[in-house]
């Protein structure tokens, strides 16, 4: 039924911006090695990330796009059926065909497009195996019940595991560009802070001692002055066995912490490298724009490089139709119906136009705010009547962003 819709004029591309208009380029993807898309939930981060990757691949770069969104749609759009924790290459023939559907695509060498989804389970298991000093320790960790609890069940674990994945991809010489899609804003902050939190935690006295001690009951000794009271208090809060077991687990886990810390530091620097850029994606609604502006401040506070705003699903205004003309227009409307009926119809159509243009006006104000805060105009992707659902769609979005 979606296909039937697609053929109708009402659901055509929806690009109504004047052709050949040359706006200042907002995104210069050529020099970047790492692009991170961030923003509120539902603004289209994943689609934008994929589009940027498609655009760069069409321009000849070797690109890996890493998504955190488990949504199937990106996989479908990339023609991969399913995204997994393994990097998979998008069929070059599909990419080429998509290139031909947009006028933006020039002839020339295509790059490569690879994609993967962050698979929490696999990634963390791999991490343990890689960093554990020996197979026996790895097995002990992997079989520990708290390990399972940390690595699979709880929100927050993705952030830790993503760190490792990004680092691995960046270290892998196969790619010129990594495009990283992040969880929705609040969680994205957790995500961005994860490396630093780990570094901080791993620098703590607790962990240094964890790495030294392995014997039972040592946990309490770590706590130093007042330890009995502290242990008793914590036991009141949690329950005794839990804490002992947790500390025991941390002790085993401590054996891979050094390696994890090195990885975290590498990511910390990678995110702040001169070739890294954060692109803040938003829709033009007031609350999402607020969130994007807030996020920009947050980036600055953390010394993370802001690369620009991208406004997605922007209403492009229709030309105005003066209300005073409506009676005349109704008369010229070639329909076999009483004038009153034609008039009523024209008025309804006019109300649809006005409703749309009110939204366009709102969006225009949002774009101005973003331009002011961002220092240059945001990348603009118009509202398409249909979801972007294939490579050609992604290439079309990329073309908008390259304008």
């Amino acid at each position: 039924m979606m296909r039937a819709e697609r053929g109708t004029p009402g659901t055509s591309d929806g690009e109504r911006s004047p052709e050949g208009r040359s706006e200042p380029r907002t995104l210069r993807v050529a020099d970047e090695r790492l692009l991170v898309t961030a923003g509120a939930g539902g603004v289209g981060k994943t689609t934008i990330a994929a589009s940027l990757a498609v655009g760069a691949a069409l321009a000849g770069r070797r690109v890996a796009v890493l998504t955190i969104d488990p949504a199937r749609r990106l996989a479908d759009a990339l023609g991969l059926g399913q995204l997994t924790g393994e990097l998979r290459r998008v069929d070059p023939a599909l990419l080429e065909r998509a290139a031909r559907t947009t006028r933006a695509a020039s002839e020339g060498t295509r790059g490569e497009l690879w994609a993967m989804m962050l698979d929490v389970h696999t990634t963390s298991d791999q991490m343990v195996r890689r960093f554990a000093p020996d197979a026996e320790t790895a097995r002990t960790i992997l079989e520990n019940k708290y390990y399972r609890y940390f690595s699979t069940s709880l929100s927050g674990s993705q952030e830790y595991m993503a760190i490792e994945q990004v680092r691995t991809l960046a270290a892998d010489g196969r790619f010129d560009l990594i495009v990283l899609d992040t969880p929705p804003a609040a969680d994205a902050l957790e995500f961005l802070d994860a490396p630093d939190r780990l570094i901080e935690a791993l620098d703590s006295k607790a962990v240094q001692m964890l790495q030294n001690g392995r014997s039972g009951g040592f946990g309490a000794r770590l706590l130093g002055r007042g330890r009995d009271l502290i242990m008793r208090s914590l036991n009141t809060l949690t329950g005794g066995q839990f804490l002992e077991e947790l500390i025991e687990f941390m002790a085993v886990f401590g054996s891979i912490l050094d390696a994890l810390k090195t990885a975290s530091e590498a990511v910390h620097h990678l995110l702040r490298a001169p070739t890294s850029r954060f692109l803040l994606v938003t829709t033009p609604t007031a609350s999402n724009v607020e969130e994007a502006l807030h996020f920009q401040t947050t980036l600055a506070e953390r010394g993370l490089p802001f690369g620009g705003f991208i406004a997605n699903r922007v209403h492009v205004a229709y030309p105005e139709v003066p209300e005073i003309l409506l009676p005349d227009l109704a008369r010229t409307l070639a329909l076999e119906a009483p004038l009153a009926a034609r008039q009523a119809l024209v008025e309804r159509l006019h109300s649809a136009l006005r409703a749309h243009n009110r939204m366009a006006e709102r969006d225009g104000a949002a774009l101005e705010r973003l331009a002011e805060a961002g220092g240059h105009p945001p990348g603009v992707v118009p509202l398409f009547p249909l979801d972007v659902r294939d490579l050609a769609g992604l290439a079309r979005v990329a073309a908008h962003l390259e304008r």
Partner: protein
Amino acid sequence: MRLPPILQRRFVLVTGKGGVGKSTVTAVLARLSARAGRRTLVCELNTRERIPGLFGQPPVGGEVTRIADNLWSVNIQPALAMEEYALMKLRFRTLYRLVFENPVVRGMVGVIPGVHHLLMLGKAFNHEREVESDGRPTWDTIIVDAPATGHGLTFFQLPRIIRDAVPAGNLHREAADMWALLTDPRRTAVHLVTLPEELPVRETVELHQRLTRDLGMPLGCLFVNMMPPPLLEAAQAELFAHLTEAPSDPYLATLWAAGRIRLGREALAGSYRRQLADLALPLIELPTQYSRDFGPEQISLLSDRALEQIR
């Protein structure tokens, strides 16, 4: 105003994919509850606050603050929630300081994934148990603007995970109590929010399945936000259908295009709306507001629309 039974449960959770309008629905439910004379508390979870703004008020921060008649709001902060909980259990601030200012303890709390979400859920849970000096519950309704689907599911599961992972003691008991509340159809309702679009609908179907089959949580209503209201009456639509090509007059052509796009969106939304009917949940449509601003006026209007549809 009397509330329909589905809106009379005490503990209300609002969830859905990111960006579908959870806060809008939270505000609508809060307004209906408060105007029905129920003392209502809205909990946002450590986020950029949306609820006070939708009632024309500035952000309230971590303290429970009145934002309208019968309506209070709080933006739950994990650190404050932890302090509150620990003080409740340990009784003494000096003891709290000794424990939680210990670098080892702080390090542990900081690295354990999920601990922040658990603390926030725990605070909302404590408000549910809160009573006045005469023993009456402080709140008639507590509405939690829960995290978006992906994280929402792990969020809802937390108490069960902790209950099963932690063998005994306070934490185990608290988690077990929390899980009992979350799965109690007399006290709790989980309202789902979605948009009449492909991805949100697909996620809603999955979410519905996981909440009912895997988690056994009691569902309330399904809110379909931003339904384009019908532009034309049936006879007008029929008339318009005769215009198969753009009129040659440029003004008429523009009007025609605006109508086509809008009707196309309506048809698409309608088809997604029909897919949702399979879920057998009371379905409430919230019409798109084509206004520049979105605030108290829109919430009031949407509340009226919602109430008309809830039995």
